[in-house]
């Protein structure tokens, strides 16, 4: 069993090493076999572990493996260990499962790319680090994984490194991640200072003994890390720019896995968060604000991937809202279903881009329904899922979140509700503009159009099935379900429930009402979108056409990027220019030069001693003998 657990992250690492060292000369078939094979085997092992876990009784539902003692310095000791409990086993399934599908998809998508081997080595490395992140049994291993996925996201976003804009986007992602990581690191350090250990088991056991103020600070710092990694306000601007990377990268990293690291971390620390209601409040507010904010921007975007990116930010906001409300299971549930349909959306978008030979602007799409049937069906399923239509996956998870919000505060529910309506509107806008109506692409593009190869459509089909039925793992009791996910994850969140201040329960009647209201109004939004973009055949305005000020504000993403540039980036550049001119040139250079100059000056003075006249030399010799003897005499 221990061997199996250690094998899960080891296989992608081996894949990375083999492909990485093989370099460009490795045959594409070998690369595919190694890369996809390692993830597939890891997935099979994850399934085995999952079944083992479900058979264990609720209070013993975890497997802990310690590989070796890593650091032992004074009071601080950390081991390299893995913890497989329901939460991490669920994440394992998602990471390896969705990861495997995306690997298969990339075989077709990146087929003609010259960096084929490099791409797969990076993908494997990313999976390795992500597995470390979720499987770590202490904060240090998680932090290693956290940083590692940041690195891999930089490598993969800037994959086509010859383009300056893409590398700038990669830099932006990495730097913003690092800002968040600072908060995370400070949080971990404070945890060590106050808890004396960084093992999860030790920290969770002692959680109630630390005073609330310190816990609030710690959890807030950890949340800053989550803000950076999971793209919440104010550290979210990197995610839309990260669409510069290849589409499978966006699917894997920015939909299914890396951005969910923040969610995982907060879920893992649920005890700490439940004991700090202040931070929970902040998490909820930021999650809600981000959800609304991003949804409004997505309403008017015209790049297919940017719409999906803002949608991701918005959905992550909803997940953080759930976590902030204390509904940890709902947050995880939504994360799992989101992984399915968002990955499917991205892969479908990739399929469309691939078919249209690189076109990403939805104003130049349309009429693809007949030409890309599989993509059309799967994309439709995904859009239905994200809009929360019964019985697709998104319905159950989103509904749970809305119910918890309603029980907590009506205003919160209202804003989340509006966000969901906007979500369904812009997703269907995207869908209709892309697939229906007349073809707006140029004639030879439409001439060459064809459905994507099997390697790309098969993952689409699998993900579509998951999006369709994935919701049934968490059917609430109101609909006569047993909510299997709740009982599976109960041991992870039980300590939190034990210290929770109050439990909110809604009557079944209220729940039915909420579900009804959401479904009806969502259908209304879909109807409006249909009317606008299919019946009236409205197409968004082209670049340069004058639009209302409000539209311009949304289209330019509320000018947040420009704001950050002015407030943060320019002062930093100015500061570094000052450092260079003053401290570097005048200060350090002077000091170093002075050392060199003093040597020259000293030797220039010393060489005067070498007069060449023997009489002088003898004189000096005698004087030195006198001095030495005198010193010896006096006893120096």
């Amino acid at each position, binding site marked *: 069993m221990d061997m199996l657990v250690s094998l899960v992250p080891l296989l992608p690492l081996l894949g990375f090493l083999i492909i990485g060292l093989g370099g460009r000369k490795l045959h594409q078939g070998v690369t595919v076999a190694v890369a996809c094979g390692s993830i597939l085997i890891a997935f099979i092992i994850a399934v085995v572990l999952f079944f083992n876990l479900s058979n264990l009784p609720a209070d013993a539902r975890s497997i802990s493996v310690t590989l070796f003692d890593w650091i032992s310095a004074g009071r601080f000791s950390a081991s390299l260990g893995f913890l497989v409990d329901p939460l991490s086993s669920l994440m394992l399934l998602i990471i390896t499962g969705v990861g495997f599908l995306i690997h298969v998809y990339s075989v077709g998508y990146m087929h003609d790319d010259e960096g084929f081997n490099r791409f797969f080595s990076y993908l494997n490395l990313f999976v390795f680090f992500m597995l470390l992140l979720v499987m770590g049994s202490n904060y240090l291993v998680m932090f290693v994984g956290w940083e590692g996925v940041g690195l891999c996201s930089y490598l993969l976003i800037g994959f086509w490194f010859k383009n300056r804009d893409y590398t700038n986007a990669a830099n932006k992602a990495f730097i913003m991640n690092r800002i968040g990581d600072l908060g995370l690191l400070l949080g971990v350090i404070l945890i060590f200072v106050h808890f004396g250990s960084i093992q999860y088991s030790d920290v969770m056991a002692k959680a109630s003994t630390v005073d609330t103020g310190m816990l609030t600070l710690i959890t807030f710092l950890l949340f800053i890390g989550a803000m950076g990694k999971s793209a919440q306000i104010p550290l979210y601007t990197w995610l839309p720019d990260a669409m510069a990377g290849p589409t499978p990268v966006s699917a894997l990293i920015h939909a299914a896995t890396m951005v969910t690291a923040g969610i995982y971390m907060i879920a893992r620390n649920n005890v700490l968060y439940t004991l700090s209601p202040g931070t929970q409040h902040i998490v909820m507010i930021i999650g809600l604000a981000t959800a609304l904010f991003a949804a409004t921007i997505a309403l008017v975007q015209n790049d297919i991937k940017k719409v999906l990116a803002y949608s991701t930010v918005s959905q992550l906001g909803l997940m953080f809202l759930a976590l902030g409300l204390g509904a940890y299971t709902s947050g995880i549930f939504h994360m799992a279903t989101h992984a399915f349909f968002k990955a499917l959306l991205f892969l479908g978008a990739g399929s469309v881009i691939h078919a249209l030979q690189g076109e990403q602007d939805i104003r130049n799409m349309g009429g693809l329904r007949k030409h890309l049937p599989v993509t059309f069906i799967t994309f439709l399923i995904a859009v239905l899922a994200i809009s929360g239509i019964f019985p697709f996956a998104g319905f159950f998870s989103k509904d749970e979140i809305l119910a918890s919000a309603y029980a907590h505060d009506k205003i919160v529910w209202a804003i989340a509700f509006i966000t969901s309506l906007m979500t369904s509107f812009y997703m269907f806008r995207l869908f209709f503009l892309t697939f229906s109506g007349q073809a707006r692409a140029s004639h030879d593009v439409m001439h060459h159009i064809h459905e994507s190869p099997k390697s790309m459509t098969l993952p689409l089909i699998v993900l579509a099935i998951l999006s369709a039925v994935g919701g049934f793992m968490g059917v609430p009791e109101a609909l006569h379900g047993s909510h299997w996910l709740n009982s599976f994850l109960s041991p992870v969140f039980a300590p939190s429930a034990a210290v929770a201040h109050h439990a909110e329960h809604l009557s079944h009647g209220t729940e039915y009402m909420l579900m009804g209201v959401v479904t009806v109004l969502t259908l209304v939004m879909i109807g409006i979108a249909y009317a606008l973009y299919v019946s009236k055949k409205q197409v968004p305005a082209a670049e340069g056409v004058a639009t209302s000020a409000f539209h311009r504000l949304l289209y330019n993403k509320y000018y947040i990027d420009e704001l950050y540039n002015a407030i943060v980036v320019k002062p930093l550049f100015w500061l570094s220019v000052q450092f260079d001119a003053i401290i570097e040139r005048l200060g350090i250079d002077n000091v170093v030069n002075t050392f060199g100059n003093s040597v020259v000056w000293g030797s220039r003075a010393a060489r005067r001693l070498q007069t060449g006249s023997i*009489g002088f030399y003898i*004189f000096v010799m*005698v*004087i030195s*003998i*006198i001095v030495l*003897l*005198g010193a*010896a*005499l006096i006893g120096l």
Partner: protein
Amino acid sequence: MLSNNRKNSVITNNYSAVTLNLFYFLSFLAVLSALLVVFSKNPVHSVLYLIITFFSIGGHYLLLNAEFLFVVHIIVYAGAIMVLFLYVIMLLNLNKETEPHKSNLLKVAATICGGLFLIILVGSLKGAESMIQVQNSNIGYVKNLGMVLFNEFMLPFEISSVLLLAAMVGAVMLGKSEKPGVNN
């Protein structure tokens, strides 16, 4: 009996008195001729005075029961080394007029240096009175010295012969005048 004791004590007293007087005379001679070596204008005179210094130091050796060294000292120093000096001076034809002089400032500085040096040396030799004196030690006799020299110090003895060979070869090489077109 009484007369024998008196005779012995007289002889003992006379013996030490004679030795002391001899010591004073020899040291006075040595210092005087050393000063004259330094301060005489004519190099040939310096050589002659140095020979007198060597003789007086040899006399000190005799007082210290080092008869073998006395003989070697006279033969090597006064006999060989000073003769070499005289040869060279004669060869270079040095006399009073060709003597170079130093500036007065340097002479004053040299005097001061010398004075300091003397003070330092005498100061460092201060604690030597507590040595045990051995009367009439016989290690200076030829037979005894030879025993030590050829038993313990055999190797340095042989190597010094190599040293002398090297010096000889060096002196000849240096002294050869270079004729153009001749390959050594």
